[in-house]
């Protein structure tokens, strides 16, 4: 199973730069880059902070994708 996120599309739709978004949730820009690439899985705390910034439930931003064999 792989954790997929919609951070990039939601951030773009809000018109925020990676730097601005990083400041909002208190991480570095590099973390946002990794998050959007899907190479970093955030902690539950960070995921909930992201959800609060986007004013959406966590499960609408992060969801599991079954890997096909």
């Amino acid at each position, binding site marked *: 199973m792989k954790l997929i996120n919609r951070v990039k599309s939601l951030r773009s739709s809000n018109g925020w730069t990676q730097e601005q978004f990083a400041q909002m949730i*208190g991480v*570095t820009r*590099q*973390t946002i880059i990794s998050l959007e690439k899907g*190479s970093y899985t*955030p902690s539950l705390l960070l995921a909930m902070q992201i959800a609060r910034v986007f004013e959406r439930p966590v499960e609408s931003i992060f969801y599991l994708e079954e890997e096909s064999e």
Partner: protein
Amino acid sequence: MKRVIIQSCLNICMYFLAAFFISSIHDQLQLFQNDPVSGTGFNLTLDLSIILPILLVAIGLSITGYWMRTDKKTSFSKWSSSTTEFSDQDEREEVITGKATRTSYVTFLITLPVLMISFLFYAPLMATFPNFPFYAIALVLTAGTLSYMTAWVYYYQK
């Protein structure tokens, strides 16, 4: 990332300067042990050309470390009791530091037994290179620091 690279490189410089410094003391102590009565007694000369680079690197380490600290509100006394490599800015960097530390630990698990094996040839090595143990320890520390730095950069850019 820059702070980890700079700090690691300065640390490596310090290992070899310290090895060089201790070697020079060792050389003089050996002279004294070999011939304790013919000279003027215990006489230890500290060469400025050895001490000065060590002092400069130590000052460089302190300045860069303090300057690159993540929490700018941290006082010098509080900051000086920790290391710059571990001053992570967010949770991802904490994870990276954990992974890099594990890599460094594995490196020590490999290099220390290799160092032990090299001590089998202690006598011939000491005959040709009397300061071998100091530089061998500096090399092992360098391997650990280099693996930490490489792993940190690798996971940071991933």
